[in-house]
């Protein structure tokens, strides 16, 4: 059970993220929602690569014969975090510009583009 805890945590994070996207109307909170889903997915990736009792996957430091955790998911997660940084920064930049134009971050009040 305790081994599944990371997976439970990432499901909770993803669910929270979707809840934020569906029910919050503040643009910054929407960005936070995307960030929550992203953290959930990243946690999922890292948790996948864990091997019970594994050592860090660095050949020169690992004791001979010890099991290593999988290195690939860690590389994937790093990439995904960097990409997440870029998307979050871009979205927040747009939120700032929208605030300058409209004086509000409420998604219901800024809607100009309809239909």
């Amino acid at each position, binding site marked *: 059970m305790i081994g599944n805890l990371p997976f439970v945590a990432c499901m909770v994070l993803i669910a929270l993220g979707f809840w934020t996207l569906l029910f919050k109307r503040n643009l910054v909170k*929407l960005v936070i929602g995307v960030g929550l889903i992203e953290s959930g997915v990243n946690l*999922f990736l890292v948790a996948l690569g864990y091997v019970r009792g594994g050592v860090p996957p660095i050949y020169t430091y690992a004791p001979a014969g010890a099991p290593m955790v999988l290195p690939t998911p860690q590389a994937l997660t790093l990439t995904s975090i960097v*990409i997440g940084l870029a998307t979050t920064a871009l979205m927040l930049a747009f939120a700032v510009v929208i605030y300058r134009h409209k004086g509000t971050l409420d998604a219901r009040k800024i809607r100009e583009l309809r239909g």
Partner: protein
Amino acid sequence: MSAHIPILAIAVPLLGGFAVPLLAKLHKGLRDAWALLVVLFVGACVGYVAVHVFTQGLWVYVLGARHPQETLAPGGFPIRIMLVVDGMSAFMGVIAGLLALVAFPFALRFLPEEEGKSLALTLGLLLLAGILGMAYTGDLFNFFVFLEVTSIAACALIGFRTWTSRAPEAAFKTMLLYSLSGLLFLLAVAFLYGEYGALNLAYLARELRGTFVDRLALGLFLAALLMKAAAAPVHFWAPDAYGEVPAAKALLLVVNTQVSLYGLWRVLFTLYGGLWDAGVGWLVVALGLLTMVVAAFMALVQTDLGRLVAYGAVSQIGYMMLGVGVGLVSLAGRPEYGLVALKGGVFHMLNDALTVGLLFLCVGAVEWTKGTRDLRELGGLGHGLPEVALCFLLAGLALAGLPPLNGFASKILIYQGSFRLSPILTAVAVLASILLLAVFARAFQGAFLGPKAEVPNRVPGVFLLSMAVLAVGLLVLGLVPGFFLEGVVTPAAEALWRGRALYLAAVLGG
């Protein structure tokens, strides 16, 4: 040198894009020449790759190996990142290259210097690199990375005009959808990695057994890629995005939606080949019908020429989904009419790129001369801009699928294939086409007919050149479709239909 062409097609625009603002510091003309040179180079690369693939079969290029054909690491496991170009990838690459070749000269003249032209060109080249990466890669995680490259570049282009209040709103909305789509895709990749410990598409395709997790991943792939391809009911970002992006760059967004669809076909046919039940095919068909009808009705009520064309573009996504969806449904029973519909769907990608591309160029030309795209203010432009009017008419009729234009050539295949499955599908598709005809007749009448209007400035020659290239393409593809069907479309459709075994063999050996 020629062995490295697939990766050069991606790497050169990626690095060349970042060189653009540096060169702009030296000289503006140098920058323009550089951007053109990069696009020409990419065009030559995708052309070379396509000729090679269509004559000699799959092209596998492995990164980080001792030589580019070494697909398997010692131990017989495909561990390296690789590009796998089959008929369908090459076809997609040609579409991207063609539209880039048309869009960039247009953009060089269209974008005003004081509105950050250098950065727009950089983003355009990055978007092109991402699109080609998605088309050529044979690795799921790599696909995700390029998906995000296109997302970021596309949204930065959409929100480019920060001094208008509409552009950032459209960009925020689009970016939200794109990031969600990227994360769903990554989650699906993580599921497959957790189960099979690999990211290579061909390896996963061989190992996939259709367990519950595999089906869950398929659902996530479908949701992610349909969202990015602007299929209903998540199409609502597309008209905003197409409407706000500088018109010359809308062409690249069109390719971006198409390459997402390409990713979906790749997942459905190559990755899951034969594992799904017919329900997935029917889902694609149903969403395709919904997309074309919803978009056609929404196009009817638009007053902004850019948004009207955007809804036209979204409706065409529906036709591709219908064609390929019918192919998917009938693949299980393997009757040949499925291949007809599939060919139609694939052919329609090329036709849609040309047609919608031409329409957006017309919108750009109208905006350039009149400074507005509002149909309530436009009118009578046909006297001053006869060439633009002619191109808009041609493209509008092609989009509605009237013979002898190219839209008809692919739609008739889709109708034939879907009619054998169920006449109702064909009826809905024809109905949507008739609606589109009404839409474009009204738009043409509103913008170009009526009392003669003053045209403040002439359309530059390079605009007309770009438009002429696409207009000739419409006519040629419509008048002699057989040549292209045999030479390009059939190999691309076959690569999806029967090419799966070849794809796996090229990567995994045996």
